[in-house]
C-alpha cells in the first residue's frame, strides 16, 4: 500500500483567485477514491469549501484564500479498517495508505504524511495546509502536519480544528489531556506557552489579548474552584465575552483561555475572537484587497444584550479608510435608504487601539487608526429596544469603495433586563483631552429600583483602575423625555471631573460601572480617549 497503489490525475483550483505566492493555499488530497469515484471526491471538496467559508473568519478573508483539489485515483476504495480496533478488516490498496484504528482507536484515522506532503509540494509548492480527504463513511480523522478526515458527517470539524494548530499555531484550549479523568493535569507549568490563545499570565496590561478585553471584564473572568478536576460550570458572563477563563492547554488550573468556548476547545462551536483574529490577520495580511477588509469583534453573534452595546472592530484598505458606518436592517414597515439599510451612526476610529493590526498590515495607510468603536444605546432601537436586530459595519475607503466588513445579529431584550443602563457622553469616543476633563454620563435602572442619588454606587474607572464617583442626580430634559417613569428619570445625569495631567500622554480608557439599590450592576460607556498635555 503506497504510491504504487494509485496515480495522480491532476490539480484543480476550486476556490479563490488570489496570487499563489501571497495567498493562503489549502490543498485537498483524494485518498481511497478510485477513478470512477473522483466525482465523489469533487463533491466532498465542494462541501469542504462551503464549510470552510461558512466558518468565521474564513469567509471574511475569502479574497486571500485559495483551495486546490488534487485528484488521486487509488487502485481500491476506502481505507484500512483493522478488526483489532473494531473495524471491518478492510485493507484496500490506496495511494496514501490511510487507515483507521491507529493506536487501537478506530476513529483515529491517519495516513502516510510523508507521501501527502511530497504530493502537495509537487502540485502546489506554496501550500499552507494539506488535508487528506478519505473515502469512508466511518467517522474519523487526525491532525499534525497533515490533516486527515473522512466523509462522515461532522468530520470536517476535525480539519478546521487541526488547521488551527498547523497553519495558525493555535493551542488546544481544553483543560484536560485524555478526556478529563486522568491524573497529573491539575496545575500548568509556570512557563507561559508561546501560542497566542493560551496563557499563564493574569496581568491585564501585559496580557496577550489585552486588546480584546473590556475594561469592565474581571480578570480572571472564571477561576477553577477545585484544581483536582475539570471545571464544568457554565460561563458566568455572556457568551463572546473575552477575558481569562481558567482551564486550558491540558490543565485544570494555572492556564487560561480567552473565551469560555472556542473551536480549539470543542468541535462545532465557533473560533473565539482571539483565534479568529490570529486566523484573519495571517490569511489576509499579505494581500491588498480590492475593497476594505476588517471585522466586527464585538458583540458576539446572536449575543443577548440590553442597554448600551459596544460595537468594535477594525478596518484597513490599501488606499486608507475614510470611515466606518454602522447600519441596521429595517424592521417591518420601516423605510430604508437605497441600500436597504438604516444608518445608525459613524464609528470612531481610534489611533493606537489595535497594535496587532498595525503589526499585521504595516504598509497600509492610516493603519494606526484601524480600530473602531461605536456605542449603541439599544433602548433607542425600535420597539423600545426589544427584538432581534441585524447590524452591519460598512467600511469606505479613501478611493471610494465600500464594503460590508461584518454583520451581527443581536437579540435585544431590554424588557427583561434588570440591569442599570446608560452611557458616557464626554469625553467622546477617541476624543483628545488636556488639563481638567469633565466626564458627563447618565444612568437609569428598571423600576422599582433606584440608583442612590449621591452617586456613591457609580464607579468611574480609568485604565481599569477605580478613579472615583461622579456627582449624580442632575436633570437633563432629553433623558427625562426619552425614559420617563424611572426612579431617576429626572436626575439621571452624573458628572465626574479629573486632572488629565496625572495621566501620561497617549491612549487611555474610561468607563462607568453602575450599581442600583438592589445590587444589580452593569458597565456603561467604556471608551478610549487620548491625553495630550
Amino acid at each position, binding site marked *: 500500500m503506497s504510491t504504487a497503489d494509485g496515480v495522480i490525475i491532476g490539480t484543480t483550483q476550486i476556490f479563490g483567485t488570489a496570487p*499563489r*505566492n*501571497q495567498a493562503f493555499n489549502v490543498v485537498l488530497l483524494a485518498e481511497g477514491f478510485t477513478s470512477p469515484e473522483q466525482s465523489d471526491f469533487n463533491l466532498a471538496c465542494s462541501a469542504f469549501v462551503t464549510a470552510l467559508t461558512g466558518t468565521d473568519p474564513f469567509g471574511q478573508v475569502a479574497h486571500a484564500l485559495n483551495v486546490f483539489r488534487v485528484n488521486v485515483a487509488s487502485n481500491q476504495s476506502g481505507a484500512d479498517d483493522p478488526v483489532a480496533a473494531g473495524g471491518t478488516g478492510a485493507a484496500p490498496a490506496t495511494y496514501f495508505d490511510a487507515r483507521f484504528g*491507529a*493506536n487501537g*482507536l478506530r*476513529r*483515529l484515522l*491517519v495516513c502516510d*504524511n*510523508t507521501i*501527502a*506532503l*511530497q504530493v502537495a*509540494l509537487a502540485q502546489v*509548492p*506554496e501550500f499552507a495546509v494539506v488535508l487528506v480527504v478519505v473515502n469512508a463513511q466511518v*467517522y474519523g*480523522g*487526525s*491532525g*499534525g*502536519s*497533515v490533516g486527515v478526515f473522512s466523509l*462522515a458527517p*461532522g468530520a470536517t*470539524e*476535525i480539519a478546521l*480544528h*487541526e488547521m488551527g*494548530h*498547523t497553519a495558525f*499555531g493555535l493551542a*488546544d484550549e*481544553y483543560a*484536560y*489531556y*485524555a*478526556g*478529563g479523568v486522568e491524573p497529573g493535569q491539575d496545575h500548568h*507549568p*509556570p*512557563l*507561559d*506557552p*508561546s501560542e497566542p490563545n493560551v496563557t499563564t*499570565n493574569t496581568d491585564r496590561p501585559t496580557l496577550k489579548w489585552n486588546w480584546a478585553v473590556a475594561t469592565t471584564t474581571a480578570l480572571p473572568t472564571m477561576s477553577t474552584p477545585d484544581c483536582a478536576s475539570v471545571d464544568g460550570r457554565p460561563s458566568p458572563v455572556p457568551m463572546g465575552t473575552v477575558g481569562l477563563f481558567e482551564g486550558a492547554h*491540558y490543565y485544570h488550573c494555572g492556564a487560561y483561555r480567552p473565551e469560555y468556548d472556542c473551536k480549539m*476547545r*470543542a*468541535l*462545532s462551536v465557533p473560533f473565539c475572537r482571539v483565534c479568529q483574529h490570529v486566523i484573519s490577520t*495571517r490569511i489576509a*495580511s*499579505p494581500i491588498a484587497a480590492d475593497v476594505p477588509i476588517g471585522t466586527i469583534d464585538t458583540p458576539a453573534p446572536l449575543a443577548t444584550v440590553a442597554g448600551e452595546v459596544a460595537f468594535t472592530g477594525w478596518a484597513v484598505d490599501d488606499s486608507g479608510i475614510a470611515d466606518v458606518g454602522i447600519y441596521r436592517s429595517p424592521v417591518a414597515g420601516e423605510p430604508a435608504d437605497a441600500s436597504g439599510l438604516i444608518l445608525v451612526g459613524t464609528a470612531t476610529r481610534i489611533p493606537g487601539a489595535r497594535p496587532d493590526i498595525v*503589526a*499585521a498590515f*504595516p*504598509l497600509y495607510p492610516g493603519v494606526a487608526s484601524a480600530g473602531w468603536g461605536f456605542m449603541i444605546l439599544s433602548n433607542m432601537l425600535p420597539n423600545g429596544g426589544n427584538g432581534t436586530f441585524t447590524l452591519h459595519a460598512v467600511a469606505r475607503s479613501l478611493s471610494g469603495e465600500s464594503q460590508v466588513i461584518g454583520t451581527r445579529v443581536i437579540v435585544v431584550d431590554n424588557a427583561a433586563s434588570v440591569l442599570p443602563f446608560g452611557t458616557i457622553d464626554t469625553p467622546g469616543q477617541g476624543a483628545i483631552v488636556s488639563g481638567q476633563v469633565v466626564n458627563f454620563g447618565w444612568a437609569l435602572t428598571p423600576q422599582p429600583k433606584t440608583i442612590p442619588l449621591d452617586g456613591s454606587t457609580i464607579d468611574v474607572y480609568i485604565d481599569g483602575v477605580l478613579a472615583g464617583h461622579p456627582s449624580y442626580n442632575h436633570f437633563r430634559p432629553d433623558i427625562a423625555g426619552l425614559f420617563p417613569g424611572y426612579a431617576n428619570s429626572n436626575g439621571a445625569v452624573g458628572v465626574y471631573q479629573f486632572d488629565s495631567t496625572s495621566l501620561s500622554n497617549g491612549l487611555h480608557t474610561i468607563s462607568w460601572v453602575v450599581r442600583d439599590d438592589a445590587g444589580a450592576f452593569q458597565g456603561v460607556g467604556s471608551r478610549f480617549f487620548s491625553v495630550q498635555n
Partner: protein
Amino acid sequence: MPNESPPFQPRPAVRFIFEYEGDQVRLVAQQAVEMVVPEASPSSAAAPGYYLDARDAAERTLARVAAPGAFRRSAEVFPERHEEPIARIDVPGQRGAFTVTLPAVEQADHVTVVRVVAGTDSGPGPAATVRAVDVASFPLSRR
C-alpha cells in the same frame, strides 16, 4: 538578512520536508519556493518546541523558524458527538513527517533541527529559562 522584509510579504524561501521515527529524523525534500513565510529571527525561539535553523559554516544561526508537527508524541482523538471532550493519547516513537518553510538566506550552509527545552532551573513566571539542543543537521542543496 531574512527578517528585513515586512511581515506577511512573499519572499524567496526553501520548503523542507522531514520524516521522523522515534528520535531519528531525515530530510526527504527541499525545494525553493516564493511565498509568505513566518518571521525568522535568529533568537525567535523563546518557547519549548522544535525549530529549524539556517546556519553558516561556522554554526552561526542566521534564521530560525518553528517546526510545528515535528516529533509528535501525542495525537488528538475527536469525538463523533461533538459535545463530548476531545482527548489526547500518547503515541511514543511514532513515525511521521513535518514541513518547514525557511526564508532563503544567502550565507546559509546547512539547516539544523533544534529542540528547545525548558531549563532545569525553571522558576515561576515568564523568566523561566530554556536551552536549545541540536537534533540533526542537513546540507543545503545549491540548485
